[in-house]
């Protein structure tokens, strides 16, 4: 008997290892393609030449300054931002779906995306002059967005908190209500905006990795990576939460502290992503579902796999966004929604009654 169970586990382990190897290859492929392909093609051969020159292995004279700049200061930061933001959004979506035991939860549901959007839109429309006095102008928009996202999440969390306990259903509904309010605020600001502001707005509302720079990433990157890493360590708690809050408590978990930690870390990860890229839909919703189809809902596997798949998909989506209508650039949110929407509908229709998610 014990052998059967151990065999069942071992079988899972082999399959899981294969899935993770495939995901690792997908991420590598996305990183390479994301660096090679674009308005100025670089290609594998030039890529190697530039890198070996950077490392001092070959003379720097073999590399043109513009080629070097495109790869090191335009392509690579974009790829890095795509990896961080994709992983942050996908893992946030996965943990919130688990925490709320609701497969439709996505990072936006705790208010972080729309809160960030409202703050960003306000800065675009009213100008960030006041903020620019204390922080470098380039940081004004991301900082405002991040603060707006965190503020909205804290507000949602406070509303749902009663007698020291947070009710998951109330938290979801509070998020829905706050999202509606924020959307109204954004609508009003859009109405009051000028044509130029409107262009900036729509780009921000639909997301873009176009503002990627190493300078921005050194601030937001570590925050996203740290938040995602700590979330990965919450896998067992989230597994127990799938059974129910009471069951998790009886298994010895501090449920309130765990919920607070997961919600705030998800807000931190998503807030960091949204601050640099604008609102990118569907990654946080669809990626965890895709992973669950293959690996099941166990968070020990779901979370790292979601991080890898989210990272790879966002880099690929960005590749499509910036090459499909050259020389212009499509907002990345349009790409993710075009792919994610139909995919999610397909997922809904193939789901058989009673088999759960």
């Amino acid at each position, binding site marked *: *008997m*014990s052998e*059967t*169970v*151990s065999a*069942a*586990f071992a079988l*899972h382990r082999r399959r899981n290892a294969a899935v993770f190897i495939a995901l690792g290859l997908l991420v590598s492929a996305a990183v390479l393609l994301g660096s090679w392909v674009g308005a100025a093609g670089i290609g594998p051969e030039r890529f190697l030449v530039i890198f070996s020159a950077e490392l001092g292995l070959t003379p720097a004279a073999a590399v043109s300054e513009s080629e070097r700049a495109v790869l090191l200061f335009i392509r690579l930061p974009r790829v890095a931002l795509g990896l961080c933001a994709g992983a942050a959004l996908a893992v946030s979506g996965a943990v919130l779906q*688990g925490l709320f*035991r609701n*497969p439709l939860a996505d990072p936006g549901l705790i208010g972080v995306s729309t809160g960030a959007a409202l703050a960003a839109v306000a800065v675009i429309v009213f100008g960030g002059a006041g903020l620019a006095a204390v922080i470098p102008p380039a940081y004004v928009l991301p900082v405002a967005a991040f603060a707006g996202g965190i503020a909205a999440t804290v507000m949602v969390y406070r509303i749902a908190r009663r007698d020291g306990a947070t009710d998951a259903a109330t938290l979801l509904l509070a998020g829905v209500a706050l999202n509606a309010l924020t959307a109204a605020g954004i609508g009003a600001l859009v109405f009051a905006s000028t044509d130029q502001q409107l262009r900036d707005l729509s780009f921000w509302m639909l997301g873009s990795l176009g503002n990627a720079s190493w300078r921005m990433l050194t601030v937001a990157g570590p925050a996203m990576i740290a938040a995602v890493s700590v979330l990965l360590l919450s896998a*067992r708690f989230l*597994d*127990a939460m*799938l*059974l*129910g809050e*009471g*069951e998790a*408590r*009886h*298994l*010895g*978990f*501090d449920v309130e502290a765990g919920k607070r930690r997961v919600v705030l870390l998800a807000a931190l990860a998503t807030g960091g992503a949204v601050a640099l890229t604008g609102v990118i839909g569907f990654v946080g919703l669809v990626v965890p579902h895709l992973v*669950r189809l293959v690996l*099941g*809902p*166990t968070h020990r596997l779901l979370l790292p796999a979601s991080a890898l798949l989210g990272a790879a998909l966002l880099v690929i989506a960005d590749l499509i966004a910036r090459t499909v209508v050259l020389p212009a650039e499509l907002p990345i949110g349009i790409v993710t929604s075009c792919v994610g929407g139909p995919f999610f509908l397909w997922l809904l229709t193939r789901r058989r009654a*009673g*088999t*759960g*998610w």
Partner: protein
Amino acid sequence: MLAVRSASLGYGGRVALHGVSLAVAPGEVLAVIGPNGAGKSTLLRLLSGECEPEAGMVALDDVPLHRWNARVLARRRAVLPQDSHLVFPVPVPEVVMLGRAPHAGRRSWAQDTATAAAALAETGAAHLVARVYTTLSGGERQRVQLARVLAQVWPDDGDPAPKYLLLDEPIANLDPAQQHATMRIVRRFAERGGGVLAIVHDLNMAAMYADRVGVIEAGRVVALDTPTRVFTPELVRRVFDLDVSVLPHPARDCVQMLPA
């Protein structure tokens, strides 16, 4: 010893329990019976530490529950809820392994899987090992959940302190054969030195498998003794508003009740 001492608790102005005292000892099965709304579930919630009494106290080995570290407590007692809300397709072994969560870092993965396997075998659910929880029938789910709580307080743990099981209507949704199978599992747990408190609706099951029966009526313990002493036609009429004849079981050393 897992004990409630003169505990009182109310919800929204209504008192659910009045000065209840009751203790589960290692090695015994204590069945708690009573009409709907008498306070049985509240008692279970007190004993599991899910809520605290307004007066009195709940203690494991004479230490109040709230002073126990949550994980250490979880290694000493497991709780089987009435129904589960698991809607994600978790593989059966993973569900059972969750019972080992409070033991994380104390034993190897191989030891934990061996315990999980033994718990699944104990509940007669070994054949479900390759299945996914959401595709199971109600009875199969109940067996897997029972295996999970058994894995949580599995006796072979290097820790000699007695373990406790709190079961909220563990046989409510099972067919007759399954009901008896479950009660036999519970008895085996007690015979290995564990203490069990089970809320049971079926008086005859309580009479057959419990060492002691606690009767709760309107938030008070009105009887607490061996089944033979507790189950009298007078008590059943008074508490359950039901006329019964109490007869000795023809083959076993216990009483059974028939509607009069």
